[in-house]
């Protein structure tokens, strides 16, 4: 894992401009985000809070290139995410975004090391190099001694740390985390938040985190609140 100074990818700034996202329930439109604007500077750790249905995850998905806005634009670093084709987006995500989910979403048939190695299968790295990088990522999250364990042999906190290692293994400029501590006890949640803070401060990663947990939001540089599709 590189330090902030030597990171292969520079930290990404994010510009969300006049973004509207409309979903359709049958023929009935449902506006989840309404002309929303957000600016995240490179290397910032932003927490998005708000009640359920306020559009937090939708905004996170737009920033991460998992979805496209109905109107407006999303720019991450030099990339205009909202204008990319599906295949371009997939490639962009694999190179620029690290994902952390609430329920970890590790592959049960793979060991911790193999789970971390998974995103690197999309690169041209040799098997030995992939393994080396995966081991490094596991060391960053403090789980190098669990590399041969399967997810079922790990605690929730350890699973989430493996997921974080998977998110950083390709050295992305942006990490998006959707309720990363939602399924964890307080102690494990604190460990995960400490790790995210370390990734932000020591490695310069831009982090956007959706959370309901005020204690988690306190770790971020900035907390933005969403309500009915608008930032306050």
């Amino acid at each position, binding site marked *: 894992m590189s330090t902030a100074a030597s990171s292969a990818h520079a930290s990404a700034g994010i510009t969300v401009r006049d973004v509207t996202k409309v979903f359709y329930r049958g023929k009935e439109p449902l506006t989840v985000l309404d002309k929303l604007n957000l600016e995240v500077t490179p290397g910032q750790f932003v927490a998005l809070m708000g009640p359920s249905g306020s559009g937090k995850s939708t905004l996170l*998905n737009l920033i*991460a290139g*998992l*979805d496209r806005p109905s109107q407006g634009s999303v720019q991450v670093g030099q990339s205009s995410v909202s204008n990319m084709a599906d*295949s371009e987006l*997939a*490639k962009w*995500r*694999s*190179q620029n975004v690290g*994902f952390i*989910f*609430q*329920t970890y*979403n590790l*592959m*049960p*048939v*793979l060991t911790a090391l*193999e789970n971390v*190695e*998974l*995103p690197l*299968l*999309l690169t041209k790295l040799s*098997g030995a190099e*992939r393994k080396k990088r995966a081991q490094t990522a596991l060391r960053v999250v403090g789980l190098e001694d669990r590399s041969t364990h399967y997810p079922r042999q790990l605690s929730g906190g350890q699973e989430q740390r493996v997921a974080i290692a*998977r998110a950083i293994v390709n050295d992305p400029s942006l990490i998006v985390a959707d309720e990363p501590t939602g399924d964890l006890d307080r102690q494990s949640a604190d460990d995960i938040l400490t790790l995210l803070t370390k990734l932000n401060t020591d490695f310069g990663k831009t982090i956007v985190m959706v959370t309901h947990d005020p204690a988690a939001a306190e770790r971020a540089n900035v907390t933005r609140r969403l309500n009915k599709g608008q930032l306050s």
Partner: protein
Amino acid sequence: MNIPLLAARNVTRNKLRTVLTTLGVAVTVLTFVLIRTVVAAWYVGVEAASKDRIATRHKVSFIMQVPKNYADTIRQVPGVQAATWAQWFGGKEPNHEGEFFATLAVDPKTTLEVYDELVVPEEQKKAWLENRQGILAGDVIAKKFGWKVGDRVNLVGTIYPGDWQFEVSAIYTAARKSIDRSTVYFHWDYLNESLPEQRRDKVGWIVSRIDDPGKSATIQASIDQTFDARDIQTLSQSERDLNNSFLGMMSAVLGALDIVSVVILIIMGLILGNTIAMGVRERTTEYGVMRALGFSPRHIATFVLGEAFTLGIAGGAVGLAIAYPFVNQGVGLAIEENMGAFFPYFRILPDTAIAAMVMALVLALVAAVIPAWQASRLRTIDALRQVG
């Protein structure tokens, strides 16, 4: 780790389901192999027919007879080295009424010349040639009826009614596995002399050995041309075609077996398709995660197809691993001993094994096409929403 290996490892996710699916495919492959082996065994005589033998029969039907002296004429046709004749007798062993076996009235000396794959000890051969009531029996039928050389046996004629007394002069084995070792040969003279005058000197068919298999068609035409001006015209065929004409009567049964084997394949495809579709449904979220990580729809389809491929290989291999000892060391031996007249060689042919394996793989892939297509079309967001 690589993508195909990851796809294959997905089958270890639900071990019970994988084991049951593999066994399901294996049993289907076993059934397929058994049916194909039955069909192949029917045709084994055709496939193993000697290329240097020509059979000549009545032009209208093989159940009508031709004059025995046609054999002398055929011997004069250029390219013919030897000729012999045979007549279907249709004998029954009184103590084994239900057992079917071929009983042929033949000219012993020329039969052994033309059918040189019949292996007979010299002493027994000499004894059979000299004994007008002697029979040459296959070792399988001799074992089944408990016949030994020197035994006196009684056969009941169905085409030529009456009790016919014989003595077992010789017992043959075969130089080729495809030869029926359940046939009983006896002297045609013995039959001919017992018939009324008007039924004498006629035979069912004449078999000749030729010097060049490449000229078989020309020699067949020459033989038939020789008899064109006679009252009874002939139809000459390769031994293979003659055997085929006998099998023609069984074509409906063989056709039905072919249909059954196709139905079995369809069942196998449905079993696999169902299992794979269930696996895909359960892994929707994982596919969403993989898409988020940057894997393409093609990758997702590859995962699904790779898993199906693994199941197909495993099921096919287990099926063949069961089928080979079951058929070749078990049921096949029993069938050859008890139904040798129909199935002289009942073993799994390499072609059958290859076909079963290829079918298992192809069907596994075909069964996975729709689930793979559905998985690849999943929208990342929709798939991830299944997280809850």
